[in-house]
């Protein structure tokens, strides 16, 4: 058992790729030590509140995880336990784990927690059912570069189908929350249900990106007039109609979330949460490849819905142009799952700009660091803008279930 023969710590430095590294550590069962986390930052050294929150989430869905910080929070030792999911008695109530995202964590959107959690979830012992809520829970896309929850639902979750993971997977938006101004709470609420656990994901072969045949999207307005949606949709369609006639963008208008005010003279009183609007677009190709784009109004305001719609459309075109079967924001999910697959070579075609990215290079290195094989790279064909990445699975898959 892992407890009796302590594995040497894998050492990493820096705060980048923190979630990926923690994720890989949990999946492979290798303990890691991350040092120099923002150690040069004069104002905010060490882990940020959202990173601590992510560690707490990992702690909640696993059993036996040990986390040690240094005094300043610049060094972290993480010894993963078994992935148990939302197990009763380990924080979950009625099969649902409620994870609060406090106001300090409002720097990131909720997808920052959800995307890594989803990569973890197929390998869990039991089903994963987590509700994210709280004053820092942002469901829209954020200036920090997180995608909106709608894009997670429509562009990330369908990817799991290719790995043979498709039953009982759902992301429910219970309450929408936008990026708050300072002093305002976001107050969104999202439930992630991931009930399909597998031993190993299927080997994926995704080589033909096909042609984009339709665009779907969601325009959301939270606490502001629904006319914003109509305006954003119209301008997005104006750009996209030249390419795809089959464009349909749904409109979702909801009231601003009510958040407990916590004021002294008014216990139990409610206050209006952050307001805003945004668009999430997803293009689907004839072979089922997905490309997404997300733009939301900034917390400071001052952007017209027309601009938001247009920017989202341009962003979508740009993502489609990068090509490949998997867009950049989804590549981490796909490549991680491929690396955890059975001992077979999976292949995926990626655009050169997708693979030629710092994060991707680092992901490749990290995966190898955790004991995976290196990626094989080759050209897809003469004059092709894509290259084929072959990933050998580790056949490890479900660490938790194996040992339990």
């Amino acid at each position: 058992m892992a407890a009796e023969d302590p594995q040497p710590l894998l050492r990493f430095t820096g705060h980048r790729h923190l979630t990926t590294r923690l994720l890989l550590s949990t999946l492979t069962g290798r303990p890691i030590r991350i040092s120099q986390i923002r150690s040069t930052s004069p104002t905010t050294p060490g882990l940020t509140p959202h990173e601590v929150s992510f560690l707490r989430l990992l702690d909640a869905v696993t059993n036996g995880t040990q986390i040690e910080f240094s005094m300043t929070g610049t060094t972290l030792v993480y010894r993963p336990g078994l992935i148990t999911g939302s197990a009763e008695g380990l924080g979950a109530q009625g099969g649902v784990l409620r994870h609060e995202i406090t106001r300090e964590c409002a720097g990131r959107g909720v997808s920052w927690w959800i995307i890594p959690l989803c990569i973890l979830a197929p390998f869990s012992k039991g089903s994963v059912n987590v509700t994210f809520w709280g004053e820092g829970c942002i469901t829209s896309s954020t200036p920090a570069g997180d995608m909106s929850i709608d894009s997670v639902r429509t562009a990330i979750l369908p990817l799991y189908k290719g790995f043979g993971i498709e039953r009982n997977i759902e992301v429910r938006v219970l309450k929408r929350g936008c990026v708050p101004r300072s002093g305002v709470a976001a107050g969104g609420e999202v439930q992630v249900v991931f009930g399909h656990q597998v031993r190993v994901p299927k080997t994926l072969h995704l080589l033909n990106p096909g042609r984009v045949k339709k665009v779907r999207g969601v325009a959301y307005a939270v606490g502001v007039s629904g006319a914003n949606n109509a305006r954003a949709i119209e301008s997005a369609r104006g750009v996209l109609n030249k390419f795809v006639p089959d464009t349909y963008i749904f409109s979702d208008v909801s009231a601003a979330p009510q958040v407990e005010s916590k004021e002294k003279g008014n216990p139990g009183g409610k206050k209006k949460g952050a307001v805003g609007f945004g668009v999430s677009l997803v293009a689907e190709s004839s072979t089922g490849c997905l490309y997404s784009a997300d733009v939301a109004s900034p917390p400071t305001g001052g952007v017209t819905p027309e601009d938001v719609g247009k920017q989202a459309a341009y962003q979508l075109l740009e993502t489609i142009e990068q090509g490949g079967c998997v867009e950049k924001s989804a590549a981490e999910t796909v490549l991680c799952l491929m690396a955890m697959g059975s001992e077979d070579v999976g292949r995926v075609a990626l655009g050169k700009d997708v693979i030629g990215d710092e994060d991707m290079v680092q992901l490749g290195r990290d995966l190898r660091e955790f004991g995976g094989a290196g990626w094989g790279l080759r050209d897809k064909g003469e004059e092709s803008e894509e290259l084929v990445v072959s990933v050998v699975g580790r056949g490890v898959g479900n660490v938790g279930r194996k040992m339990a």
Partner: protein
Amino acid sequence: AMEIHGQKRPYRTTDLARMMYNLTMTPAEVVKKWRGEEDDDEEGDEADDDFFNKSKAQDPANLEDRHIPIFDYAALEAKWEDEEAIESLKSRFATGHMAGKGGD
């Protein structure tokens, strides 16, 4: 690291395969070199300095992990209003030129 110095053509797959696991280069350097964006004159001896000053020199916008990259929307708008760009992308769409490359 030295033997890849002489490369001319950017985006060559074999180069990336070679650089990907060369741990003496940071990912940023790998990407830059692969795209052929670097200015060669200040390489070499300054590489060591870069290594130690890296965190200070980092672009603040680049400090956190992002799922969605930062776009310059004004440039994008100009790009996608351009007929040529539109035409070249149409081959990626089902309704575009069926004679285009790729096929279904």
